[in-house]
């Protein structure tokens, strides 16, 4: 997936300074690859192949080795995502306490399948492994926040609160 036109895969001067700061934190600069990819995702919205090549250049790595890393971890998005990401836990405790109902409700409300993004680009819906908040099962992650003890009413309120 190529970056959409207009998204320039290029860090600003300040971001490049942050890259260098991160690289200097570790005994080997390669260790900053995950943090820099996180920075890239924040800056470019997702990690396109161009972004992988760009980051590879910042680390003197072959693009294949960056691609290995990007495809290994679930938190790197390789395609544009919605403005908000809703990740419903489907692991054991949440499953016992109704994760499937929560997910079905969200699919219906948003009109998307798991992995899909609403046509308005607002929400990407995911179904994920244990987020380690089983005490609030069934739960989900909404961007940076954990939301638990989910009911249809609560899901509605959370969705309404999203900008």
């Amino acid at each position: 997936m190529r970056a959409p036109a207009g998204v320039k895969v290029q860090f600003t001067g300040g971001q490049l300074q942050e890259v260098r700061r991160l690289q200097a934190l570790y005994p080997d600069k390669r260790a900053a690859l995950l943090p820099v990819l996180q920075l890239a995702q924040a800056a470019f919205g997702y990690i396109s192949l161009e972004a992988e090549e760009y980051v590879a250049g910042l680390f003197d790595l072959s693009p294949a080795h960056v691609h290995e890393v990007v495809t290994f971890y679930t938190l790197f998005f390789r395609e544009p995502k919605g403005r908000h990401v809703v990740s419903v836990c489907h692991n054991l405790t949440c499953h016992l306490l109704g994760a499937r109902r929560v997910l079905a409700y969200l699919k219906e409300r948003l009109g998307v399948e798991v992995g899909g993004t609403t046509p308005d680009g607002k929400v990407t819906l995911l179904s994920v492994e244990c987020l380690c908040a089983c005490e609030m099962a069934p739960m989900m992650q909404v961007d940076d926040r954990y939301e638990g003890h989910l009911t249809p009413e609560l899901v509605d309120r959370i969705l309404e609160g999203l900008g």
Partner: protein
Amino acid sequence: MPKLTIDGKEIEAPAGTNLIEAARRLGIEIPHYCYHPGLSIAGQCRLCMVEIGNNPRPQIACNIQVAEGMVVRTETAKVLATRQSIMEFHLINHPLDCPVCDQAGECWLQIYYMKHGLYEPRMMDEKVHKPKAVPLGPHVILDAERCILCSRCVRFCDEITGTGELGIFQRGDHSEIGLFPGRELSNPYSANVIDICPVGALTDRDFRFAVRVWYLETAKSICPGCSRGCNIEVHYNLRRPHHNQGRRVARLKPRYNREVNRWWICDAGRYGYKFVDDPSRLLLPARRADTQADEVVWEEIIPLVAARLSAYRPEEIGVLASPQMANEDLFLLRRLVDHLGIPNVDFRVPSRASGDEDRILIKADKNPNTRGAELIGLGPRPGGLDARGVLRAARERRIKCLWVLHHDLLLSAWPEEETREALRALDCLIFQGSNANGVSPSAHYVLPSATWVEREGTFANFEGRVQRFWKAVEPVGAALPDWEIIGRIGEALGMGPLPATAEAIFKALAAEVIAFRGLSYRELRDAGKPVASS
């Protein structure tokens, strides 16, 4: 050196040796996929499990080094059961496509399944699907479903070439090897990944579907592609002559030599053999008058060439030997030149294309035997002309007869028109070589040479390592080894009888040329020996 026992046999092995290598020394083969002695230890395939001492769990032999008093068992019931299980795991998602897989016959899944697997298949679910028949580059094609993720190819590109083109992407049973999208695997050593791939995942675009491997035979040889002298195997097909458009040589494979090329060869060398079965091969000796060329037999042409060589004064003759020729050829040629007193001898013809070189194997000198030609002494005699001087003299009609061995002078670094002028000015042009080239059409006498796979002999590489190559196939047409052509001409010129074998010539060479003193043809064995240090 630690002493240990493997399957009850004692062995001493240097510290640092792993158990696979230690067992190999005892003739015990511990099956493995990911381990390769030329690469780092990955420990991924889990097939090389052995029992060590009283450890209740089998351990991987690749990652355990020999230790004093260690007791290793490679054939216990537990080990055999583990191997069988691991074979099943390897084949869970492997397609059952051996009949259409080019690796069949040399596939380590097949070999080990028959030896260590033989379980009842019970995987009835849909297998994981991955990309198939994906060209990775000019030489390599990938079938990701057949891949067992041993990572040898990835490690090769990381550790040997340092190019890092390949990776293992995704995770779990969706893991697959591949390139960064849009890139290709085109480093100068790319095809080595085919050799080290234990299964049918990476196959050779040049070789695949040409010949089934069980029809192939093998001869040990030396790559003639540059002065490294990589040890190779020539795989040739005589049993199914209708396959592969009648090409006899099917492929070249690297042959391990610790001192020269270890396990690898470059792609240029690997695919550089096509001239052997090429339509451009010179099949019969020929004599040309005006524009008419007549094919003749050796018995007819040898006296004619001998007569011409003795018709000129030695200073009117030029001889351009080739560092493509074997030591045996060069030695007889030197004898003949000395016999006739020809001063204008050389072997150095600079190539127009500058040769690439790297720190791995590839040398800029694209000839296999420059060192041999130097040591045997095929340079100008005192007062004689070098190659360029010979051509200049030919233009000036001071050289009247020129004997060119193998060189395509039109591809030299010298101005092409000057060379053409020189060739046109000659009274007599003798061309000896395996294939038609820019020189051969103008030659008055054409002497067809056997290629290196059609004969035996020795080359000395850039370090002066003398290495034997063996005959794989018969020469095409009436072609003869260079030494035999030279020897027959010499015989006609009173130089003495034609030696019977390359070995006999080597013996004379070793007796006469200081650098080769003490070397014996047989004792060179597979790995060769260095010349006396000069």
